[in-house]
């Protein structure tokens, strides 16, 4: 089957996740969709799979315009998708997961589907036991199961969204082999990935997306450098931030491992010194979030040791981290950082620890007035956090930070902000560095990291694969590391 997407649009309010994308996938090929986080890859594929409705554009299957609105319609037309977060039923068995959505009626069809499943498992040389519960499977095995299920529905076009994140090399090999086999059997495969290596190894053709638009496409053999520049744009000029004298060691991690996100964090060892501005690069969910939360004392590490100013923090609770001056600002401001129903002034009152029984509303009010002005938050003391725009929420969070912090941990502090707000945030944070506060931030924007950070840690699949001073590297090298090539 041949898929053609013409002038695809998907808008969320004023945000254009897909902005006029044209793409053709030929029958019997493996087509890679490459791009950074937020480039619009997953959105495009979810539209193709019928999971979300499109804003505009045409989907043409074998030269016929097709209009469909649900995943069921898509699979009836031969399109199936393996979502990034597996959409399955962990408490149910493999066989049951296989059957849901295919089997109807009230007569017992277990035997027939068991045979079908076992045949497919054998065909692809997988080793899944039909009778274990899905929660006991690895991420890779869950993918295999989902793939088999889609194939048994008669899927002609298989979409895989970041399938290689969080699976072992062996499983990756098995997956790639089976995908090659599918292509040779005449099926089309669309592989969504941010990993250059995987796309190079597998795809016949690669299309690169950046900020919701196609920036180019390429056939085998690939020129890695050109692909990288399609993904990340032209390398920016290094900025000129005045150097800061570093002080003593603030945070020290030794062999820290932890659970979370899809990859977790494994065996991370670093030292952070006063006044350092460290940028965490890497695709979203490569372990940066776990790293920040472990450093903040929110997630407990499963292994390794962590200390502040030489004091061992293992076994200490969150309160002890707070007392040591650690501050963490999460990326999802409204979900984890602010109280949506509380007003600005209530946030200031809440921050004001103290032991008094009553809230000092006058103080909170005047402080919130003063700070909203200083931090240019567009809102009155009575505006509730939910009603603020993203940029103003971020400013509010920053205005709540205490000046005495020793370590600032910021998760994507400029996510969703406009240029003006972004510049303001960095200008404000650089003042902390001058006060000898260590700042660690994560970002999915490599340009931003290059222009702000003094030191860069690149995360890949839950490990730090590169730890380098900004002036000792360049965008190209970092982009390679992000895509898993050191």
């Amino acid at each position, binding site marked *: 089957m041949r898929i053609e997407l013409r002038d695809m649009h998907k808008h969320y309010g004023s945000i254009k996740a897909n902005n006029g994308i044209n793409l053709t996938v030929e029958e019997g090929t493996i087509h890679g969709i490459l791009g950074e986080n937020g480039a619009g890859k997953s959105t495009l594929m979810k539209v193709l799979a019928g999971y979300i409705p499109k804003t505009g554009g045409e989907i043409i299957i074998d030269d016929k315009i097709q209009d469909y609105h649900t995943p069921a319609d898509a699979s009836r037309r031969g399109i199936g998708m393996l979502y990034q977060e597996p959409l399955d039923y962990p*408490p149910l068995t493999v066989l049951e997961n296989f059957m849901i959505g295919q089997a109807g009626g009230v*007569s017992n069809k*277990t035997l027939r589907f068991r045979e079908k499943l076992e045949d497919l498992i054998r065909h692809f040389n997988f080793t899944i036991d039909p009778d274990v519960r899905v929660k006991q499977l690895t991420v890779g095995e869950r993918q295999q199961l989902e793939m088999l299920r889609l194939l048994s529905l008669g899927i002609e076009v298989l979409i895989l969204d970041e399938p290689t994140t969080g699976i072992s090399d062996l499983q990756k090999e098995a997956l790639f082999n089976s995908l090659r086999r599918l292509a040779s059997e005449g099926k089309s495969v669309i592989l969504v990935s941010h990993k250059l290596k995987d796309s190079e190894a597998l795809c016949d053709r690669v299309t690169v997306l950046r900020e919701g638009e196609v920036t180019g496409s390429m056939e085998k053999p690939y020129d890695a450098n050109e692909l990288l520049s399609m993904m990340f744009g032209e390398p920016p000029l290094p900025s000129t931030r005045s150097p800061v004298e570093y002080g003593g060691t603030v945070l020290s991690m030794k062999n820290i491992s932890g659970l979370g996100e899809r990859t977790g964090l494994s065996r991370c060892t670093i030292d952070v010194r006063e006044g350092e501005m460290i940028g965490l690069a890497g695709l979203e969910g490569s372990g940066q979030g776990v790293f920040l939360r472990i450093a903040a004392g929110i997630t407990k590490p499963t292994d390794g040791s962590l200390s502040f100013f030489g004091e061992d923090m293992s076994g200490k609770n969150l309160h002890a981290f707070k007392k040591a001056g650690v501050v963490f600002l999460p990326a999802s401001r409204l979900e984890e950082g602010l109280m949506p129903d509380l007003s600005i002034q209530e946030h200031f009152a809440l921050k004001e620890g103290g032991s008094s029984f009553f809230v000092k509303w006058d103080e909170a009010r005047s402080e919130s007035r003063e700070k909203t002005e200083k931090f240019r938050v567009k809102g009155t003391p009575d505006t509730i956090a939910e009603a603020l725009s993203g940029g103003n929420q971020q400013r509010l969070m920053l205005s709540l930070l205490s000046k005495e912090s020793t370590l600032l941990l910021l998760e994507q502090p400029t996510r969703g902000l406009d240029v003006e707000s972004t510049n303001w945030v960095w200008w404000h944070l650089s003042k902390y560095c001058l006060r000898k506060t260590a700042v660690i931030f994560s970002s999915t924007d490599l340009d931003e990291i290059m222009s702000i950070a003094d030191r860069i840690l690149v995360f890949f699949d839950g490990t730090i694969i590169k730890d380098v001073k900004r002036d000792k590297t360049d965008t190209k090298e970092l982009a390679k590391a992000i895509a898993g090539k050191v």
Partner: protein
Amino acid sequence: MTGFDLTILLGGVVAGAAPILLATLGETITEKAGIINLSLDGTIMLSAMTAFVVAFNTESLIAGFVSAAVVGALVAAVVGIFSIYLEQSQVAVGFVLTLMARDLAYFLGNPYTRVPGPSVGPQPIPFLKDIPFLGEVFFNHSLPVYLSLLLIGLIWWYMYRTPQGLRLRSVGENPGACFARGINPRSLQMIYVLCGGFFVGLAGATFSLCTKPGWGRPQGAEGTGWIALALVIFGGWHPIRAAIGAYLFAFLQVMGIYFQEWFPSVPAQVFQVAPFPLMIFTLVFINFAQKESVIKHAEGRVWLKVVLRLFSGAMPTALGKPHKTGQ
């Protein structure tokens, strides 16, 4: 002391458990699909009243049962519409309906208080009833009791042996995944909410036309709905285990009569609350049994593992969280 006859005792348990068993099975279906219908206690009262009034006026027991089941489904429909389509708190709506349906039952049923009316008589099954012991325990009852017995197996079979039952379980686990697989999670949940309400309605009818014939205030069915809700949890959302819970409860109730003779100072009501601490204990234990450290501790200790398995009743993952549109 009156004669203690095990056959009569167990026969009484099977008969007495019928309404609560029906309600428990109904709620198990509803919750398995991911929706909590908290209105059970009121629904049972309202359908009990409906059954009696309709049967009294039409002189048809069947009409009584059918109308009660419809009323049960109607109340459930309100819960379903509010929670699935209007995205309101299931707990809030269910709770309001609990009180409201009960009061509605008292209000509308007022003219029929203590009026002698029709009731379902025993219908022993020929031949089977002559089997020693088993015949007396299982096959010497009225039709609703047979129905309740039959439903245990039927619902179990439907849930665990048919593709439709698999869908039912899947929508309670992950409605989003169902949507991706071409199943409309909202209408599926609505269907099973109605279905569960239907059985709860039958439970009410069984009360007023069979177990405790007649209508009055108090009717005697008060509190049953709450117990049924507790039994669903006790049963780990599994129809057979829930049924065992219902029989256990009925056994406690029947034994209450004996206990009262043995411990005359303790009123019967005290024995009636026994299932509730049991429910809390079970809930604590379910939570406890799922802790990783506990599971690790159980490695290599056979008896502990068996106990943990017994309490591993997994709550449907999406229970109380209906599918939201627009992601």
